[in-house]
C-alpha cells in the first residue's frame, strides 16, 4: 500500500516537476511567461492520437518531434521579433499564440474530444518491491524521472546547460561574456518542446483522450508549481512542481470520497498559505531578467 502510494505520488510529482521546469526555463532565459506552453503539450498529445495505432515508443518520438517543431516555429515567428520587448508584451503575445494554436486545432483536427485507447501494457499491474503497482504509474515515474535526470545532467554538466543557467540569471552579463542569444533561446525552446511532449505522452496515457483544451490544466500546473517553488530558480521550480504533484496524490489518497471533488480547494488553500509566508517561492533565485 505504501509502495503503491509512493510510486503514484513520486510519479505525479515528477510529472508536475517536468511541467514546471518548462515554464520556469523560458521565464528565466527570455522573461517570457509562456501561456502557449499548453499548446506545445497539445501538439505532442495530437501526435499521440495521430500515431495511436503505431508502437507506443514511436508515437512518443513523434510527439517530441511535433512539440519541438511547434516550439521552434512559435519562437521564430512570434517571440523572436519581440526579443527585446517588455515581459507584458511577451506575455500577451504568448496568449495570442496559445489562442491561435488552440483555435486552429479546434477548427481542423480536434473539433471535439478524441479517444486514445490506452496501450494494453499500460493497464497491467505488476509486482514492484512486494507491492501491486500499475504499469502506468511506474511508467510515469520512470519516464518523468529519467527526463528530470536528463535535464539535471544537461543543466549541470554541459556547456549549454551552464550558458542556459547563466542566461536565466542575468542575460545581459551572460551576453557580455559571449553567451549567444541565438543559441540559448532556441535551445531553451527545444528543451521545453521535449519536456512538454513527454508530459503530453504521459497525460494522454493517463486520460485516454485528446482535446483542443487539454493543454490548459498542465500549463496552469506548470505556472503554479513554478510560482510555488520560485520563478527565478530552476531547482525551485522543479521542487514546487514536485511538491504540488505529491500533495495532489496525497490528497487523493487521504480525502474521504465525498471530499475528493474539493481536492483542488484544499491544495490551493495550502499553496496560498505557503505564498503568504514566502511570497518569493520556496527557493528564490538571485535575479531574474525582467526586461
Amino acid at each position, binding site marked *: 500500500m505504501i509502495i503503491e502510494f509512493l510510486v503514484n505520488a513520486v510519479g505525479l510529482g515528477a510529472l508536475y516537476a517536468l511541467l514546471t521546469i518548462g515554464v520556469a526555463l523560458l521565464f528565466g532565459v527570455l522573461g517570457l511567461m509562456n501561456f502557449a506552453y499548453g499548446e506545445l503539450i497539445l501538439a505532442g498529445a495530437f501526435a499521440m492520437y495521430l500515431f495511436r495505432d503505431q508502437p507506443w515508443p514511436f508515437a512518443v518520438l513523434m510527439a517530441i518531434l511535433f512539440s519541438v517543431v511547434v516550439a521552434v516555429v512559435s519562437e521564430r515567428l512570434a517571440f523572436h521579433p519581440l526579443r527585446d520587448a517588455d515581459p507584458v508584451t511577451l506575455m500577451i503575445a504568448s496568449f495570442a499564440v496559445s489562442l491561435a494554436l488552440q483555435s486552429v486545432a479546434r477548427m481542423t483536427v480536434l473539433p471535439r474530444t478524441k479517444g486514445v485507447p490506452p496501450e494494453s501494457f499500460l493497464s497491467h499491474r505488476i509486482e514492484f518491491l512486494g507491492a501491486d503497482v500499475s504499469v502506468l504509474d511506474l511508467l510515469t515515474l520512470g519516464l518523468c524521472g529519467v527526463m528530470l535526470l536528463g535535464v539535471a545532467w544537461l543543466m549541470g554538466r554541459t556547456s549549454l546547460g551552464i550558458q542556459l*543557467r547563466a542566461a536565466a*540569471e542575468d542575460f545581459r552579463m551572460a551576453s557580455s561574456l559571449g553567451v549567444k542569444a541565438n543559441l540559448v533561446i532556441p535551445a531553451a525552446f527545444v528543451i521545453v518542446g521535449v519536456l512538454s511532449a513527454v508530459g503530453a505522452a504521459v497525460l494522454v496515457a493517463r486520460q485516454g483522450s485528446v482535446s483542443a483544451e487539454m493543454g490548459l490544466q498542465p500549463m496552469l500546473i506548470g505556472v503554479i508549481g513554478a510560482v510555488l517553488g520560485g520563478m527565478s530558480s530552476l531547482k525551485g521550480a522543479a521542487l514546487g512542481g514536485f511538491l504540488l504533484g505529491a500533495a495532489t496524490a496525497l490528497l487523493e489518497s487521504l480525502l474521504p470520497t465525498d471530499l475528493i471533488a474539493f481536492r483542488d480547494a484544499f491544495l490551493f488553500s495550502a499553496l496560498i498559505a505557503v505564498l503568504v509566508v514566502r511570497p518569493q517561492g520556496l527557493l528564490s533565485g538571485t535575479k531574474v531578467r525582467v526586461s
Partner: protein
Amino acid sequence: MVLRIEDVHLQYGSSVRAVQGCSLEVGEGELVSLIGQNGAGKSTLVKGIMGEVPVASGSITVNGVSVSDKSYSTIRAGVSHVPESRGIFASLTVGENLRLGAVTRKDKAQVAADIERELERFPVLRKYWSRGASLLSGGEQQQLAIARALLLNPKLLLLDEPTLGLAPIIVDLIFDVVVALREEGMTILLVEQNAVRSLEVSDRSYVLQAPGRVLGSGTAAELGRIPAVVDYLGFSPAEVGAPQ
C-alpha cells in the same frame, strides 16, 4: 591605440546626457585610470565602450572598430569587462563561472591551461572551485570576476570600481594583481574612486568631472601641475608616487 574616445557624448534615453565631450586614449600595454567622484560619468563611459549606451555624437573605437558599427561586438574586439556589480552568477559554482569566461574560445586545451594560470593567480578560487559562487565573500567574488574576464585573453581589460566596498587587505591584493597584469603587458582601463591608489599604479590618468568632462590628464606629476585637478581632487597628484 587600443581605445580611442573622441569628443564623445553619451546619453540615457532622450534627455539625460551623462557624458559630454569626453576624449581619451589607451595605448597597447598601458594602464590608464579614470578617476572622479560619484556621478562623474565614469561608469557610463565604460558602458559606452561596451556598446550598452548609444553614442549621441563623437566616436569610440576599439582597435580601430567603432562601437557604433552594427557589427561591433566586444567579444570580437577583445574587450573584457569586470562590472562594478561584479556580474557573478550566484546559481553557478566558482568553476562554472570561470568556464563561462572562455565560452567563446575554441582552443579547449589552452583554456584548461589558462584556467590553471588564473587558479595560480587567485588560489582562493582553486580552494572553492566546487562551491556556489553566492557563498563567496565580496573580495573572493571580485577575484572570480577578474579571473573570469582574463580567460577571454582580452586585448583591453575594463575594470570598473574593482575595489569598491572591499576590506583594505583585499584592496591591496586587487591593486597587486592590476600591477602584475600591467607588467605582463595587459592593456587596462581602470575606473576607480580610490584616486591615490589609482595614480600610484597607473601610467597615465584621466580626471573626470560631471557630466563626463575630462578635467585633466597625464602622469601623476603632470596632473599635479593642473590647478583645477588639484582643487577637484583635494590633493596634488604630484605627491603620489609614480608606478614602480
